[in-house]
């Protein structure tokens, strides 16, 4: 089996910490929290700055965020001149909901004005596959495109799908990641009523007072290339997606199995896929939602999968700085994981003051600290975990 890594040649992100991947890692590493009044919104994003009026009105916010993040990643990877046959460039994006605000609004229109008044553009604006379609249209890509909807694991699975496409040779480059924007009265109600949202509005993963996740929004995109063709064209390789695996709890529709066993299997399988051992891991970017269930089961999973080594490495949660961007989270966190490695920094788990009983790993409370490779080859290895409603567990291995 081909276990080749994918070269990461460009990243982009729009998050509550600002526009661009640099704003994400800079803000988080400095301990800035992008959560205000109980939500993480991308306040610096104004579609008018980056999209034409025509483009913007044909996209819901999730697609706007995703398209701009994709453009940042593509500019970093190869600028305006794609080095590949357009038919060999693919795009797989994660999105859990897509245009739910448009669907909701148009449902109201139908109720009040009748079926004939439902907006002509409802489908193209709301469809969850809008983002990869728009990325392909704008950039002329003609390879396979599509969306993956597995709730909070969506864009981690999109990254895994992209890695596999490169390995089987169905593409030379794949644009992966995801986007989500459901910080709205409706979006908040969906999760609050399911018992997942923090009542306090504070994200404090692994803390004894944690009481749920804080809703965020954003987009995170990576350009993956076949490492040989990336090297041949002298691309600036930022790092690698070295492995990926996914498992399914099959335990409960919304709750994680507290024993973490099936999550641990995903971690172990992802490391095996990357030809790495548990002892090779230098850093874990946790799913770290700040829900009582997740943080306990994730800790159990890390202990099962990494053994004693789990106690020796920094583990932190990007969500503590930006909230939970649902279908975008895996993409945003893959970007923050990569940049943690390239900047050699373990960013803090913000809001963590007193770890809950039994949550005894090193969750990097307080401030950032230097991240040093412990292997002899100087390479840094990280896990990016994504666990979802539905029991989907996805783990991406990222290396320098």
């Amino acid at each position, binding site marked *: 089996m081909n276990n080749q890594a994918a070269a990461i040649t460009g990243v982009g992100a729009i998050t509550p910490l600002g526009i661009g991947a640099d704003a994400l890692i800079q803000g988080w590493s400095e301990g800035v929290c992008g959560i205000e009044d109980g939500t993480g919104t991308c306040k610096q994003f104004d579609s008018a700055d980056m999209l*034409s*009026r*025509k*483009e913007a*009105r*044909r996209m819901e916010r999730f697609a706007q965020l995703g398209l701009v993040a994709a453009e940042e990643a593509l500019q970093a990877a190869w600028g305006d001149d794609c080095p590949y046959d357009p038919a060999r460039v693919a795009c797989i994006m994660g999105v859990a909901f897509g245009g739910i605000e448009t669907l909701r609004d148009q449902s109201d229109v139908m109720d009040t*004005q009748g079926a*004939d*008044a439902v*907006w*002509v*553009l409802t489908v*193209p604006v709301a469809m969850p596959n809008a983002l990869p379609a728009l990325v392909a249209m704008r950039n002329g890509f003609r390879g396979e495109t599509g969306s993956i909807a597995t709730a909070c694991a969506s864009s981690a699975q999109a990254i895994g799908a992209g890695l596999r496409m490169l390995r089987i040779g169905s593409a030379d480059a794949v644009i992966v990641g995801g986007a989500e924007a459901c910080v709205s009265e409706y979006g908040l109600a969906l999760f609050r009523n399911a018992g997942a949202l923090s009542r306090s509005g504070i994200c404090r993963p692994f803390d004894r007072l944690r009481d749920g996740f804080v809703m965020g929004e954003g987009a995170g995109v990576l350009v993956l290339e076949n490492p040989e063709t990336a090297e041949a064209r002298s691309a600036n390789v930022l790092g690698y997606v070295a492995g990926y695996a996914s498992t399914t709890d099959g335990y409960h529709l919304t709750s994680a199995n507290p024993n973490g066993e099936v999550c641990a299997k995903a971690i172990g399988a992802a490391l095996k896929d990357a030809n790495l051992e548990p002892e090779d891991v230098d850093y874990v970017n946790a799913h770290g939602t700040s829900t009582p269930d997740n943080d306990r089961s994730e800790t159990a999973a890390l202990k099962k999968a990494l053994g004693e080594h789990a106690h020796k490495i920094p583990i932190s949660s990007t969500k503590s700085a930006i909230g939970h961007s649902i279908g975008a989270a895996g993409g945003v966190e893959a970007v923050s994981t990569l940049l943690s490695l390239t900047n050699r920094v373990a960013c803090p788990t913000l809001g963590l003051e007193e770890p809950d009983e039994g949550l005894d790993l090193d969750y990097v409370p307080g401030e950032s600290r230097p991240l040093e490779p412990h292997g002899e080859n100087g390479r840094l290895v990280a896990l990016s975990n994504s666990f979802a409603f539905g029991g989907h567990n996805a783990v991406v291995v990222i290396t320098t």
Partner: protein
Amino acid sequence: MEPTATPTRDQISARILEALVEFGADPEKLQPEATLEELDIDSLDLFELGQILNQEFGIELNPDDFEGVVTLGQASEAMLKYLE
């Protein structure tokens, strides 16, 4: 919205231009001889225009009304013919 009882050509023409600007077209370029391609007006814009005219003026366009239409003037006439 209740359709206007007896819309005039001027009313409908003005509404078409207003809608196209709302869709993102450059008002300076909205000349009858301009092509839809130049104005970046596509089939979705025309569908949306059709819906607006239906909702506001009671005009019912047919799917093939825009067949062979190249310019904005031709597109407008394809919609205005329902007043004759």
